[in-house]
């Protein structure tokens, strides 16, 4: 009796051990986006975008004969928690790749984890550059693919010929670095420090009265003024509300934002905001069959899964597009490499192309881990969508090391091995 149960136990043990020994029949994919806290407004849909793409890949038979299995964690807009959750995904859940992060401070917090464990992170949001890690693929824009063209547009005749700039941001690494680059860029265009003010607010700041008053005052002190906003997260809602209520019109002082898209404007009455600008590499309003297909895919998925908000009014935006491109390129690279091994996938990623919803053929640069992207500038319309008023003639190669920062001279345009 005793022997028999021991045998059964051994059999059971071997049963349990078997899947572990064959490293499972799924490929695990980590999703590291804040689903609560101040950044949830922006990041939650990215999680759903990853899940949608995974469903799509699985429906086509998965990768290397295995299904993809998402592992979703919530780092709750808490930067140190990002690193903890990343560690958990890599060492405990053994994921092959992680899609995640929005703010640069969260990316900086997880970066050492990915480098130490030699794992892969796909980062889908425009950022400040000044970083190039072999373990990260940056599918969002570098400053020369968003910030610089946007400011050039503001200075052009069509953009209003701005001569004075208010650089407004949330107080963390992305806005501070971007504004440093922009200041250097403006200097190169002959704009002096007297015509630039920089102002920062904490995360989750809700009272923008004095900032708007300051902008008004600055605008009355001379030539044509424009505002460059790198405000992130849910602070944008009170900011734009106050802007509308105080009657600061886009025809007088246009605001160009780098972190405000269709999703962030969802809860805002956009009628008074008409004409304010956003610079991105994708807008939902871009016409084309690739975008139509993407929007339809998302609408159907949102309806099927009952995603709050999106099931009634589906919206797509730039980071969603970047996420979608990222995961598809990763899948292509895994297929090409025939393995999910980090180094093999990194090698296979170089030069990957994918038909982007924005209408271009998106290409991963052979060396610098960034996508080549077209830049679009859109104006807010009354219905919360954007009207593209300017775009680059074709895709632009990313410059992660901005040439406007003198210390960057001589830095190599590829990650150190």
């Amino acid at each position, binding site marked *: 009796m005793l022997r028999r149960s021991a045998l059964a136990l051994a059999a059971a043990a071997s049963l349990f051990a078997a899947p572990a020994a064959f490293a499972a029949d799924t490929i695990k994919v980590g999703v590291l986006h804040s*689903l*609560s*806290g101040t950044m*949830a*407004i922006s990041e*939650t849909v990215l999680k759903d975008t990853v899940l949608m793409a995974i469903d799509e890949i699985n429906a086509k038979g998965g990768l290397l004969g295995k299904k993809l299995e998402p592992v979703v964690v*919530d780092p709750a807009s808490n930067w140190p928690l990002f690193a903890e959750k990343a560690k958990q995904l890599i060492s405990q859940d053994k994921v092959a790749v992680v899609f995640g992060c929005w703010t640069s401070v969260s990316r900086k917090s997880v970066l050492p984890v990915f480098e130490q464990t030699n794992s892969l992170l796909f980062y889908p949001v425009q950022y400040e550059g000044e970083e190039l890690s072999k373990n990260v693929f940056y599918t969002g824009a570098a400053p020369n693919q968003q910030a610089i063209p946007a400011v050039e547009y503001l200075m052009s*005749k*069509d*953009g*209003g010929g701005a001569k004075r700039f208010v650089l407004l941001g949330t*107080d963390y690494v992305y806005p501070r670095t971007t504004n440093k680059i922009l200041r250097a860029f403006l200097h190169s265009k002959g704009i002096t420090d007297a015509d630039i003010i920089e*102002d*920062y*607010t*904490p995360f*989750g*700041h*809700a*009272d923008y*009265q*004095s*900032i708007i*008053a*300051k902008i*008004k*005052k600055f*605008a*009355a*002190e*001379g*030539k044509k003024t424009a505002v460059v906003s790198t405000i992130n997260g*849910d602070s944008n*809602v*009170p900011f734009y*509300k*106050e802007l*509308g*209520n*105080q*009657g600061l019109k*886009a*025809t*007088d002082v*246009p605001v160009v934002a780098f972190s405000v898209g269709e999703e962030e404007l*969802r*809860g805002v*009455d956009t009628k*008074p905001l008409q*004409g304010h600008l956003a610079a991105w590499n994708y807008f939902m309003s871009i016409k084309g069959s690739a975008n139509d297909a993407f929007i339809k895919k998302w609408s159907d998925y949102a309806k099927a899964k009952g995603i*709050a908000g999106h099931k009634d009014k589906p919206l797509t935006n730039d980071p969603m597009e970047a996420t979608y491109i990222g995961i598809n390129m990763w899948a292509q690279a895994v297929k090409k490499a025939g393995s999910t091994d980090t180094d093999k996938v990194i090698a296979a990623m170089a030069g990957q192309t994918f038909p982007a919803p924005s209408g271009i053929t998106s290409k991963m640069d052979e060396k610098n881990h960034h996508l080549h992207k077209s830049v679009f500038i859109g*104006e807010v319309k009354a219905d919360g969508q954007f*009207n*593209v*008023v*300017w775009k680059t003639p074709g895709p632009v190669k990313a410059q992660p090391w901005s040439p406007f920062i003198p210390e960057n001279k001589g830095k190599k345009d590829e990650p150190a091995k």
Partner: protein
Amino acid sequence: MLRALGAARVSLAWIFMIKRLLLGWLLALGAVSAWALSPELASRIAAGEGDDRVAALQQALAAGDESLGPFLRALQDGRVRVKGGQALVIAEGVMAPADAEEPMLNNRMRREIEAALAGLDLLSKDRATRAKALATLRDAADASKLALFEKALAAESDGELRSQLNSLVAGAKLSSADPGQRRAAAAELAGSADPATRALLLEKLGAETDPGAKVAMQRTVDNIGARLAWGERAQLLFSGLSLGSVLLLVALGLAITYGLMGVINMAHGELLMVGAYATYCVQQGFRAWAPGAFDYYLWVALPASFLAAALVGAAMERTVIRWLYGRPLETLLATWGISLVLMQAVRTLFGAQNVAVENPSWLSGGWALLPNFTLPYNRLAILAFAALVLVGMALLLAKTRLGLMVRGVTQNRRMAACVGVNTARVDTLAFALGSGIAGLAGCALSQIGNVGPDLGQSYIVDAFMVVVLGGVGQLAGTVYAGLGLGVLSKLLEGWQGAVLAKIALLMLLVLVIQKKPQGLFALKGRAVE
């Protein structure tokens, strides 16, 4: 050419030409209008390169077509489509053809169109239309419009509008080639209080070569600057008071539960959140069942948020806090636990993301008191609301039986019990009252900020700060502290930015508490203990 369309006999050749040249006026409801704007010009205004579009607009304006106005208005309203290089005007309420493109309007075009329309309206017969046009043109007074302004001035009979026109003419004359005229124009503008005029003057000042004109311009700039400074000061004061009123609202509930009853309620912020979510629920209800009355949802949301938070507060008091009176440390921990439970409950019920609470239309926008001083309606409403709640609470405490009992119990519990006051019941009611006021504050906060599960977290520190600074147990102290902190924080923000302002304020609080542990406005004598 279009007149031909109106004519009864339209030859095939005409139709062909019209089609070819453009002008697919969709004559939806048979509305035929006089059309003198050449189709070619219209399509050039609607589409093409920015410079060319502006030139076409100026050309049409110079030609003085009557049909330009309606066309531009249609363009503004998004009722113009471009199809095969032709501009079509879509009649109101008619679906646009699917294959036609919407013309692109950027800020520059929008500004030009606004200015062009205002220029046309300047000669209108209706005084209100002219006044509106003048307000629009204030920011666009450049030399090219001088002829227009002078023409309007000659026709204008209304005194007030004349003086406005005069300053517009002066603004345009600042670019005149004659230094004497520039000097006179600068002197003429000395009475202005408009930021746009100042900006214009500063721009011209940089390029001015004539010393006399330079002096005159500088003097005018200084004059306007001095006048504008009042608007700026008023704006600063107002934003300070507005922030102060928010702080006051947030702290009033706590002034009862902590100030009078001595309960360190760490869940106070979550009571705010409950009020805000109650507002959200009422809003959703109105949207679903009474969309026509949406603008009035706040009137239902106010009592609903009070009741919701008061009920939660009463339940908290009955189940947890009651057993912990006189044990501040345990109360602190228990209420902190409750705050976590409440937050998680809301996350489970409504999701972790912020929910959108929309302002009713009468709370959107603002009242432009001076050109550089606007009072947003939602801030004004909150200021008034805070005053109302404050007065209501003061009356309740000072004049009613419940207020008397609350004061009695908090001052001397045993004596109150001796004279027959049901102290347990009074405790519950007082705590529910404080919580309900927190709920009202939550309703107000939903109108200016984000509503999410951690809404309370960002206000709890501020609330305690106000109550502690004002002096525990002192309603008047809470008022002074709330408004004072608001104004001070806005002053610091204007000076050093929002991040440092927050730090400086907390440092200041530490210093004050060190010097005056009872708060700034502590009661003198034994009552404090």
